[in-house]
């Protein structure tokens, strides 16, 4: 029978989805039965979504307003660099 440690590792290393069907079933069943592994799995997912939210906010806050300025600045600098050669 699969152990909590194996489940925690499979979940955090992204290897769960590449397992065979029977193994995935076993992991799912374990996650259903075990409150700590299910908490662990949920937290790992939440870390990802919280990081995505943070990155979304970061790009709005720091890219500059209007947002398209970044691309314009980069193109200007690249063309200046090209002329300098």
């Amino acid at each position, binding site marked *: 029978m699969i152990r*909590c440690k194996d489940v925690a590792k499979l979940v955090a290393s*992204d290897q769960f*989805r590449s397992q065979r069907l029977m193994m995935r079933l076993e992991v799912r069943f374990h996650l259903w039965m075990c409150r700590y592994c299910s*908490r662990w799995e949920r*937290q790992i997912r939440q*870390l990802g979504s919280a990081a995505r939210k943070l990155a979304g906010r970061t790009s709005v806050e720091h890219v500059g307003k209007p947002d398209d300025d970044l691309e314009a600045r980069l*193109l200007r600098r690249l063309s200046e660099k090209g002329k300098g050669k």
Partner: protein
Amino acid sequence: MRAAPWGPLIRLLQGSVLEPAIALICPDCRAPDKLSSEVSATVHFEEVIVSQATAMSSVSEMKAELLIRLRQREPEALATVVQDHAKPLYRAGRGLGFREEEAEDLVQDVFATFLETLDRFEGRSQVRTWLFGILHHKVMERRRDQYRDQQNDPIDEVFESRFDTSGNWMRPPQDLEQLLASQQIGEAIKHCLGTLPTTQREVFVLREIEECETGEICKILSISITNLSVLIHRARIRLRECIEARGWRKAG
């Protein structure tokens, strides 16, 4: 192990029963997740060490016409590439801990190198993969003196210490629901991302923020799929431990 109430039962019905049932009835009708691509990535990249950036050429995506225009240094072609990729690269730079001006300089450097190496780019891999590969090299150049990823990362021991010799939880994960749902989580993630070694942080940013597939991350960072599994595992464990420590302090 203790059984939890109804929430997990509903999840089981959604995930554990339906997904395998669909897979059994119709193997091609799998749930719309990353499963199929990850499995195929596993098959294709298992144990393969993808060497340098020049080896990034297995998927045909780049339009030949755009490539020709880029080689002719057409400003509109460059503008298209910058328009499509500047923000994701900048976001990754910020996610890797570079300040605003540093991140912008980094992205500018990436595009400059992209232009310089255009003749080596055969157009067989995606432009995004090529650009992120350059970003990776630039980041490693700038972080040369930093902690290098080790074979034996101390975080592995922290993970091991959570379990007894039978593999059962000895130090189970704390309940972080309140912290994870609160506004403070952004600040906590920002702080804790800073504690990650560069490559682990890159893997986390590419996987979770840019939502890159396994195969693409392996190409960008020139690592095997086994190595990627180790790195993402360490990144998440380290991040989770850091968040848990902060949550604990706040609760106390």
